[in-house]
């Protein structure tokens, strides 16, 4: 055992002296919400209780290993029970556990209290991106950000992932094209759901992790106390790009949030997409299209955005078809498309709507209307002839 410890010590010493030492982290990320702080101190408390018990029990064991061995001539005693001792070491752990359960219970009850939020945001997991929608609410921020919709996708370029020679960004794999923006010191309620499979919305610094379950809505909350950018990842295996759907939350002060919201509120209508300050026109339009189609209430108006096959392609289909992932015919690759186009465009429509081999039905978003999917197929065919 000593060997193990010394080896580990050597390994860590080597790390500590390396230039990366600053980046090496042994514990939780710095907590930035009241809940995350409670979790942090709960963990510290329980870790130390465990360490003390561990040292006591294995101190006794190693004492016995050193002193009660045959090679030092120790003769075996023959006792094999002691009711008193056995009762003590059943009851004492029980009491210690009660001591641990008490603060944990308080934290659980606080975590579960999602009432009276200042702002409510619906987070929808898709394979493989996050969609955010600022829900119309009654809190302090009622009306400020109502209806803003964002799609948030990994921003790390493919070549950084697949090409060893490419330099990696500072926030490799933890960066997105459109961050979720929330105000500081406000209670933010997150509603989670998903379009296809189960995802999980996780921001470690906030102490928040909540599964996003297709067909159901769950909720959680956080109150960030410092402005800044906080990064997390999808925490539930959701298919091949599971490792590539990060969550980035930018916490800003109230004035900045109002400012950001007023600029983005107009994004809700596709016509005004060009006014988006940070986003290029195409993705912004794509977001609008997708959410419009994904919202059952908006289905009556689905035909208008559905006509925009390009927007749907950019927003969804491109996830596979841009790179030719999982056998998908690559966008613009005439050789790959020719045999498929030869089957007739109706067949392609049917495959796209009902799924075919690795192609999920409606690209994995069952909320899209048939017309939207067909328009996207037509667009892809037209660009790949």
């Amino acid at each position: 055992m000593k060997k193990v410890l010394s080896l580990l010590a050597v390994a860590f010493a080597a790390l500590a002296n390396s230039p990366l030492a600053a980046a090496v982290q042994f514990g939780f990320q710095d907590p930035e919400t009241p809940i995350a702080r409670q979790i942090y101190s709960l963990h510290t408390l329980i870790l130390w209780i465990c360490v003390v018990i561990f040292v006591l029990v294995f101190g006794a064991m190693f004492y016995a290993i050193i002193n009660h061995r045959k090679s030092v001539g120790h003769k075996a005693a023959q006792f094999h029970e002691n009711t008193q001792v056995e009762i003590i070491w059943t009851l004492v752990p029980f009491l210690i556990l009660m001591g641990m359960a008490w603060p944990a219970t308080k934290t659980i009850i606080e975590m579960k209290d999602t009432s009276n939020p200042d702002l409510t945001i619906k987070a929808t997991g898709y394979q493989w991106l996050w969609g955010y929608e600022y829900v119309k609410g009654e809190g302090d921020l009622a009306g400020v950000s109502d209806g803003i919709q964002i799609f948030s996708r990994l921003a790390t370029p493919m070549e950084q992932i697949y090409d060893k020679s490419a330099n990696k960004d500072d926030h490799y794999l933890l960066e997105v094209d459109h961050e979720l923006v929330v105000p500081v010191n406000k209670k933010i309620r997150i509603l989670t759901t998903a379009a296809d499979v189960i995802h999980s919305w996780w921001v470690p610094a906030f102490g928040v992790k909540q599964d996003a379950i297709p067909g159901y809505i769950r909720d959680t909350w956080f109150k960030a106390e410092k402005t800044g950018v906080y990064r997390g990842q999808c925490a539930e295996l959701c298919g091949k790009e599971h490792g590539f759907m990060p969550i980035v939350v930018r916490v800003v002060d109230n004035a900045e949030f109002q400012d950001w919201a007023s600029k983005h509120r107009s994004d809700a209508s596709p016509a005004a997409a060009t006014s988006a300050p940070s986003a290029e026109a195409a993705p912004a339009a794509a977001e609008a299209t997708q959410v419009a189609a994904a919202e059952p209430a908006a289905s009556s108006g689905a035909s208008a955005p559905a006509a925009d096959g390009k927007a749907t392609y950019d927003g969804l289909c491109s996830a596979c078809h841009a790179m030719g992932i999982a056998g998908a015919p690559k966008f613009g690759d005439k050789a790959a498309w020719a045999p498929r186009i030869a089957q007739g465009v109706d067949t392609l429509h049917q495959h796209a709507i009902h799924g075919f081999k690795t192609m999920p039905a409606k690209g994995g978003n069952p909320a899209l209307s048939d017309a939207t999917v067909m328009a996207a197929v037509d667009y892809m065919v037209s660009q790949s002839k």
Partner: protein
Amino acid sequence: MEAVHGHDHAHDHGHDHPTGLMRWLTTTNHKDIGTMYLWFSFLMLLTGGTLAMGIRAELFEPGMQFWRPEFFNQLTTMHGLIMVFGAIMPAFVGFANWQIPMMIGASDMAFARMNNFSFWLLPPAAILLVTSFFVPGGATGAGWTLYAPLSVQQGMGMDLAIFAVHIMGASSIMGSINIITTILNMRAPGMTLMKMPMFVWTWLITAYLLIAVMPVLAGAVTMLLTDRHFGTHFFNAAGGGDPVLYQHVFWFFGHPEVYIMILPAFGIVSQIIPTFARKPLFGYTSMVYATASIAILSFIVWAHHMFVVGMPAAGQLFFMYATMLIAVPTGVKVFNWVATMWKGSMTFETPMLFSVGFLFVFTMGGFTGLVCAITPIDIQIQDTYYVVAHFHYVLVAGSLFALFAGVYFWLPKWTGHMYDEKLGKLHFWLSIIFFNLTFFVMHFLGLAGMPRRIPDYAPQFADFNMIASLGAFGFGLTQLLFLYVVVKCIRGGEKAPAKPWDGAEGLEWTLPSPAPYHSFETPPIVK
């Protein structure tokens, strides 16, 4: 002794004793079947281990190096399925087959032909699992837990996995019926339940757990199958189903399953520690009750695997309290083992080294289990590398180390030869060093925020991942040394006496080494 054994043998079985392949295909002998179980599980251990090497190679540094992400998911999924259902569970059944008749003074298992069948179901299941890599779409990549709806999306590799699970479940249930019947009906006169060796006790309880939960797993995967192919909507909200239902059913199987994989390990260690401490097991009665308590509690804690699905506060509290309660009987066991060592006269042959290693490292896994039980903390570390570290501490350092300990402990009885003590000790030290190198750092990765089941990670996780990968390669290679030690012991070596360990107690040591074909022709009397 050899001569006597040979004589008995010829006398009883001269009329029907096929050799070669037919001996193994048609055997109804508990030792032959036990041997096949053990070799099968070792083969699966190497297969699952190879997949693990594939995982650790990809995670050696940031960036995608070897595999596509979907293949990486197949590696993690199949590593889990093969290790759980192919390596650990059959290995314990192998031990049960070899040891239970010898330890209770029986001649063989109760249902000898069913015993043959329950083994021979396993190779087809293994073939289904392994060949699923080569079907269109590859093996399932939905994780060993096969969560719906992701598992509903998968290709035909998923169907092969479902059938494999069905078959292995049937095998386990038959094995369990056999074990329970053998233990309850075939004990030597005078061996009351409370005089049974701990290994037999733990297997009796494990067998009941298996019978209770394997059908539940079969139900879960069958619902999956009908959702995939026959238009049902058990797990599809659009059809009135619920994806979370799958998790409830799966973990109702899954949590007792983790005790299925550890209780027999407790049994093995409870045989070995008293032997090498030359002192009776401390608190035999409380050991039995603790084992039973763990088994009963295991049925009411399943949802602690699901703290982030969004259950009500009352649910989280109930499952947290119930889970924490398991620490009490588990603690009793650890204290009892330490008390057994206390004031003993210990020696440290390889079985004892592995048992002490088990105790030390398994307890670390127990403590991290307690950390995971605390709901608020679990919400941070669920689905991270912390959990990966935790369950490898209990499954590798727990179950696998106990299996190694058991192999070294009983090899002389099985083969009639002593193993190479020096190499055995080397195997232990390399295993425990590389094991900790691999998995200890994963705690830090999980706390810092690295999710599990991802093929690529942010650069701040790079250092620990590299250490873990190096450790894993070392751990994998070390197991080839184990293979060498075992093969060397089978082929020859110092002749083993009937009782090679001077502190050993129990009926199996009254038999010659190697043990005769039929363990006890006439039952011994236990006083």
